[in-house]
């Protein structure tokens, strides 16, 4: 150790070889994870090249014919693709309007419950559906609201006629949104509860001393306190506008028909993998990714314009 290091109190600067020798076991520990990510995340990035090819599984990526932007041209002229796009945007919009406020409201409600024990109980129940698979969640819906489900069982028993919910393409957006709320709203309150817990309680006391009622305190203290998280969640939501879900639609596609249930995520599967038209599906996937990146970038800009941090700080 040189005198300079002793004076500044910093550890001595070591050459990278020495540091590599010292930390080799730490680096070694990261090898399995990195190897898996390279194989299953980085290598597929090269596979995106297939979007510009007429991919032939027999000869592989290296020897397939290049077709430039043909796949994309075909995609933009494909009625089914645009249907999926419209469905995706529509479902995203419905979810944004109907789903997004629910966790915030629930978090506020739950936060106002005084009894710790009751709160913990409610929380553990509302978190539960998050851990169900989509297949299970949809089965539950099917059993409650489907043609042979509890609701129709009740209606039939009272001669009111039946109500077709699970297979109606016109109300499909409402159906999938309520499924999403049922499954995920409880889980999404976690982050809002944390933000609520972070609000300084002195503010409430001061406001109350100044004569602010509960609604005024909600408006002037609680909501501003949540503002950062709300904007962040909104940015994420907008950035994911083109990913409305996958298994949820896959499982219900047969019941409501493809024209209502096809979204961009399922498009790649049905018109790429299921038909063996890999290049076409890859092109659809790439198209979606690029638009999604633009969306998240735009949403983030918007967040900055409102003076919030968004995903990252300016």
């Amino acid at each position, binding site marked *: 150790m040189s005198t300079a290091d002793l004076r500044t109190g910093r550890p001595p600067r070591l050459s990278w070889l020495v540091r590599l020798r010292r930390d080799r076991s730490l680096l070694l520990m990261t090898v399995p994870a990195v190897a898996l990510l390279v*194989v299953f995340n980085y290598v597929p990035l090269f*596979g995106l090249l297939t979007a510009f090819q007429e991919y032939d599984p027999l000869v592989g990526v290296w020897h397939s014919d290049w077709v430039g932007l043909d796949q994309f041209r075909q995609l933009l002229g494909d009625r089914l693709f645009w249907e999926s796009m419209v469905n995706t945007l529509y479902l995203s919009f419905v979810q944004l309007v109907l789903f997004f406020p629910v966790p915030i409201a629930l978090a506020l409600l739950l936060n106002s419950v005084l009894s710790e024990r009751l709160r913990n109980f409610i929380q553990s129940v509302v978190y539960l559906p998050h851990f169900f698979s989509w297949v*299970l969640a949809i089965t539950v819906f099917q059993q409650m609201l489907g043609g042979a489900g509890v609701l129709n069982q009740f209606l039939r028993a009272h001669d009111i006629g039946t109500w077709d919910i699970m297979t109606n393409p016109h109300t499909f957006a409402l159906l999938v949104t309520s499924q999403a709320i*049922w499954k995920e709203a409880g889980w999404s309150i976690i*982050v809002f509860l944390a933000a609520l817990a972070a609000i300084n309680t002195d503010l409430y006391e001061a406001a109350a001393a100044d004569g602010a009622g509960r609604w005024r305190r909600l408006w002037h203290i609680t909501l501003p306190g949540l503002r950062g998280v709300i904007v962040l969640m909104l940015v*994420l939501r907008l950035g994911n506008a083109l990913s409305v879900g996958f298994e949820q639609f896959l499982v219900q596609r047969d019941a409501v028909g493809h024209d209502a249930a096809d979204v961009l995520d399922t498009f790649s599967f049905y018109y790429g993998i299921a038909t063996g038209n890999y290049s076409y599906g890859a092109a659809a996937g790439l198209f979606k990714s690029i638009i999604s990146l633009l969306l998240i970038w735009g949403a983030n800009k918007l967040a900055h314009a409102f003076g919030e941090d*968004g995903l990252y700080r300016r």
Partner: protein
Amino acid sequence: MTNALTIERAATATAEPDAAARRRRRTARPPWEEPPTPVGQAAKGLTLTGMLAVILVPLWIIVVTSLSSPGAVNRAGGLVIWPDGVTIEAYREMLTDSTVRTALLVSLGITLVGTAVSMVVSVLCAYGLSRSRSFGHRFVLVLLIVTMFVNGGLIPTFLVVTGLGGYDQWWALILPGSVSVFNILVLRSFYSSTSADLIDAARIDGAGEWRTLWSIVLPTSRAVTAVIALFYAVGYWNSFFNVMLYMPTDSEKWPLQYVLYMYVNRGNGMPGSVNSGFGSTHAQTAPLSLQMAVVVLTLVPLLIVYPFVQKHFRTGVLTGAIKG
């Protein structure tokens, strides 16, 4: 720096010093807060009860139906709401069917092996990246985080997995999704917060990195390890789409979720029906109690583990919440 980090900082900052004060505020209303109006109180109670009912009632009905005899199901005209002659006949019948039995074993196998693989890989990687001055950790971290935002998507990944011979192979259900960068980041942030003195003390006692991880860091972060293991396990237990992609044909290899999908959602043949199995074209829809027994079967393992891990969610989730 992400905003999520701000949330985390805020959350942990208040969670620790204020925890006691908060608990006090919780049980007793502060003097300045006005008592609730009866109407507000009733509305709140109703909403919360409704919320719980929406989740619990369907589960109740499904469990009760699975425990009912065919006669009780007939009397109820479908799903059974009040228990009426409880019998475990449906479960016995279901478990004699080889498809369901294999599926149960397959699901358990995938979940156990997958979770083990994921946990070993993630814990090692998280610890390897957790020492703030170690060589190369920044580079590896960037390598990891990039995959959270950029990926090849469905088809390129499918082509790589099948190109490696993954079609109809167990590993295709496990390895491609075995590493969750998000989970690694959560673990890492906990490992970084392990007291440096503790680690130095271990070092002085002659422990290497492996020893330190095993004897110091892992035991001090049991809660978060349990939460992350649950996340992984649930992911594997619920695996459905991967099966559809990589082994859609061989019903001997289907996990429970896929059987549930085929039996209940697609109305395919069920165990216990006259023509069981998928080879037959005349597969009959099974008795409702049997279908519901399959549903319950997919739920049971989760419900067994859940209560033990559930109380740690807050710590586990918040520290990593949307960290980019």
